[in-house]
């Protein structure tokens, strides 16, 4: 079976052609970097996405701090992850890359700060 996918890794949005047989990816074409191949493989087995959202922060310039998962987490866990993240409150200062929630929902992926925020 041949599947047509759009790679979501970057705004280039490469159009991928994936050959799948018995749940195994045989070949990927149309990608312009190795990320495209990885994306095609995971998309055909269990789609995964980077999750970006915000958490409450105290003592900073804004009321919320943007956060991002260090790697993709399964797409089918994204709503559950949002519920888990909703309760998190942090205090300034925070540095970009600081771990906000380690091993999010047992995925092995950390949720980290997407920017620094000083204490004001």
């Amino acid at each position, binding site marked *: 079976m041949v599947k047509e996918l759009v790679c979501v890794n*970057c705004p280039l*949005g490469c159009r991928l052609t994936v050959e799948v047989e018995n749940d195994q990816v045989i070949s990927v074409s149309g990608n312009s970097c190795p990320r495209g191949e990885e994306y095609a493989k995971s998309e055909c087995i269990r789609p995964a996405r*980077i999750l970006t*959202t915000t958490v*409450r922060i105290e003592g900073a310039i*804004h009321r919320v701090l943007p956060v*991002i998962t260090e790697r993709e987490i399964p797409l089918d866990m994204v709503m559950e992850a949002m519920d888990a993240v909703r309760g998190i409150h942090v205090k300034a200062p925070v540095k970009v890359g600081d771990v906000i929630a380690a091993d999010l929902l047992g995925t092995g992926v950390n949720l980290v700060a997407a920017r620094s925020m000083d204490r004001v």
Partner: protein
Amino acid sequence: MKKVQAIIIGGGSAGLSAAVTLKKNGIEDILVIEKDEEPGGILEQCIHNGFGLHTFKEQLSGPAYAERFIRMAEEQNVRILLNTMVTKLTADRVVEYVNPEEGTVQVQADAVILAVGCYERPRGGINITGTRPAGIYTAGQAQRYLNIDGYMVGKRVFILGSGDIGLIMARRMTLEGAKVVGVAELMPYSNGLPRNMKQCLEDFNIPLYLSHTVTEVFGKDRLEKIEMMEVDENRNPIPGTEQDIDVDTLLLSVGLIPENHLADQAGIKMDPSTKGPFVDDRYMTSVEGIFACGNGLHVHDLVDYVTLQAAKAAEGAVSYLQNGKPQGEPLRIQNGNQVSYCVPSQFYPQDPAEKVTVYFRVRTPLDKGTLVIRSGDKIIRSVKKRKLVPSVMEEALLLKKDMEGLTEPITIEIAEE
């Protein structure tokens, strides 16, 4: 009056890149003017990922991308005035600004770089009839409320326009627990990047109505419902296709327009096809010593291109500060078949820039075509292209030897098959 070598208006992705480039080229006496309370511009509210694959070979969120440039600007000791609004720009490069500490100040600059960004087309720009209830926002406005100020703007949401910010907000509002009922797009094709169609709509089963528009809004204090209609090939609503949809929020993602009132004030010639200034191959506008770059010049789909272009504009400003204007008279770089705009739109055949990347967009989606760069009957280059869509900016490369000594304008066109 105070004097400074270069003033950069805007401390977002374009302004920061221009500032860092000026400093690296030995222009020390510079000033960045930013209206917001921190530098970074619109990237600060674009918390989604996908930024920086060209610039940093990494996938970053908007704020992380901005932070890298803010750090670079700090390392180069770039002076940034925050909470400061430019109120006037003259053709002889006097910049008037106002802020709470200094009041109103005028500064004379040898060079000015406009890095002012763009604004969103508002409801008034598309003439939706009906009442004026709360609950109607531009997509970027809702994005700022949610991602910077931490407020949700609604629970049942409809989105008009399939621009990228609209698609990204469809996902963002869904993640935050809102029900996004659908997205309507006037054109028969999407105006967003293909990746956003996939990861923002398809991932969450949000329906996209192509060739549809919102024709009326209802509600006294708060939006209660909208009327959606299908449109014909001339984009006119088809009678009998009216459909009422109950929502409390309507987000508009119906176009971005370069912010141009300062350029207008300085008497800079504007390009009706981009709604930003005309610029030459060094990014200088029609007014000597005033340069333009980023979304204030033409709307980009990738911040990485904004960064690159702003660096080019800064190099243009360096060359102007050191050597003055290019030699000779400029010729146009003009739109040919299927091309809706070209930036830059002028070059100097007697004194061309080293290498110019001309950014352009196609008018309608094309499965394949050939990009032809020509000057009169002389073909400079032709390149085969596939899957051309208006939402994806394309590039045409001009080398110094391509432009040198030409006597006719350069035309960028797509030969259709």
